[in-house]
């Protein structure tokens, strides 16, 4: 790029010696470096697809894709192998759905509490405490679900088994709650004070202000936090592995043991099946399915956010 064509101006004294070339190059450098950083995520995806695709291909040579999609049993490790992925998908949906039912309202409410109700001194402490919850090892959550939540639920949910989708889902919800609460809180906190004042000045109560003005203004950030939360719920492994049981079955009954996609993957990956065996490569097919499902979910939510995003500048 040539130097500026702008004519010299009379008052341009020697006091001003901007190094435009340098700042331009810095900007270009930042752009290139950060663009490359962005590409890391693309490279990761490509890497994941490459990691999965080969074995998935092998898998579908052994197992017809039709069976994969239509069987209603999932017994790849049994002698009478059947590969009905719908069994694992339904379990993943069930636990994630329960988790979201818990985490979405609680997450938003907690975020509102932190940013609108808690005194700022308390907020300083509450928020980090919540975030610590995000760091509790998921193994601990798993045992919490199994040994604490399930027995409590048993007392008033008839027919609840020790392993079940319900307690796993609830605890999964608690595990993703900090993600939702913390990121939503940031979004809510960023809503300009002038909007709140505008609402109060109309005679709105605090709740009316929050639900009608503040939350819609923060919607973009809230939905982003939901997406991360959902993503984590779908991909979370240890809680469902420990607490939901390992029984693949096609059911939407949250009271019985089920097996999610992730829990199947971890079971096989850490188990004794030989790598390369049909049992083992099954996890790649499952992983690929999970990947595709989340892709669809994300494309949908991307579209959704795009429709409802509001700028309040």
């Amino acid at each position, binding site marked *: 790029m040539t130097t500026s064509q702008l004519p010299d101006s009379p008052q341009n004294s020697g006091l001003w010696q901007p190094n435009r070339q340098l700042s331009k190059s810095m900007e270009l450098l930042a752009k290139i470096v950060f663009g490359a950083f962005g590409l890391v995520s693309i490279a990761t995806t490509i890497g994941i697809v490459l990691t999965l695709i080969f074995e998935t291909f092998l898998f579908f040579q052994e197992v017809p894709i039709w069976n994969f999609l239509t069987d209603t049993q999932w017994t790849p490790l049994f002698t009478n192998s059947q590969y009905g992925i719908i069994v694992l998908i339904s379990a993943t949906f069930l636990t994630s759905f329960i988790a979201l039912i818990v985490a979405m309202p609680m997450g938003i409410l907690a975020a509102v509490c932190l940013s609108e109700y808690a005194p700022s001194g308390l907020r300083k402490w509450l928020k980090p405490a919540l975030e610590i919850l995000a760091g509790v090892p998921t193994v601990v959550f798993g045992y919490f679900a199994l040994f604490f939540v399930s027995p409590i639920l048993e007392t008033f949910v008839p027919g609840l088994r020790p392993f079940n989708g319900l307690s796993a889902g609830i605890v999964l919800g608690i595990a993703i709650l900090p993600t939702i609460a913390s990121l939503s809180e940031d979004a809510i906190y960023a809503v300009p004070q002038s909007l709140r004042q505008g609402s109060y000045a109309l005679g709105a109560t605090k709740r009316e202000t929050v639900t009608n003005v503040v939350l819609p203004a923060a919607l973009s950030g809230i939905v982003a936090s939901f997406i991360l939360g959902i993503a984590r719920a779908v991909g979370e492994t240890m809680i469902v592995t420990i607490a939901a049981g390992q029984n693949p079955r096609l059911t939407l009954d949250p009271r019985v043991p089920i097996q999610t996609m992730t829990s199947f993957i971890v079971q096989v990956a850490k188990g004794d099946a030989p790598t390369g065996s049909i049992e083992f490569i099954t996890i790649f097919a499952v992983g690929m399915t999970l990947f595709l499902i989340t892709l669809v979910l994300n494309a949908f939510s991307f579209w959704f956010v795009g429709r409802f995003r509001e*700028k309040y500048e």
Partner: protein
Amino acid sequence: MQTNPSTAVGAGTTFHVAQANYYYGSFLAVSNVNLDIPERKITAFIGPSGCGKSTVLRCFNRLNDLIPGAHVEGTIQYRGVDLYDKSVDATELRRRIGMVFQKPNPFPKSIYENIAFGARINGYKGDMDELVERSLRKAALWEEVKDKLKESGLSISGGQQQRLCIARAIAIEPEVLLMDEPCSALDPISTLRVEDLMHELKEQFTIVIVTHNMQQASRVSDMTAFYNAQATEKGGKQGYLVEYAPTQTIFNNPAQQATQDYVSGRFG
């Protein structure tokens, strides 16, 4: 009801302010304000930047409640009732005392919803479409936005946004309208429309307006309060009420030299 009859003022007074001090935390922002704002008149607050006009105004609908540490000492009464009395409900108060802000702050919702929101939460019983149209017409905005009521309140220009905020405020039919430099983002034609509107509203409502525009003050207001600020020892600035009198007096025959100095720096 705790209202002390002896401090209650005549029906002609909307706000009665006596020996009021306005604080932000320990910082005394405005001191010793004494005012009686007459009903169904327009009262203008003028004064240099930072002298506390907005502060005094915001206390009339207790919007200062929202600022941590902000508090008032002294007497502020609305129609004979102590505004800061426990029995006074701030929400109901704000329904009756509308406000328009210095910076336009439409909600990030549709234009329609911006207006309907206040009506809905306040239990409006009439035809909402009709209310929205009427309010927008009053704010001289209807023609410009009637085809895009579903679009975001943020998609229009700054001047339009401010008129939307005015429409929003008058939609809930307040008794008093507080306006903090409502026209600073408006062009003259819109400004004139708003001023006409103020004259119209004045038949029914009390209006208090903060303005930097001396012409506007002299044109629209019946009463004018002139505030000034002086430096304190601590290096801060402390606002105070210099003079409060009929607008005629303030502009033509003020009692204070400071007022004279200020208004004579006026335009035109």
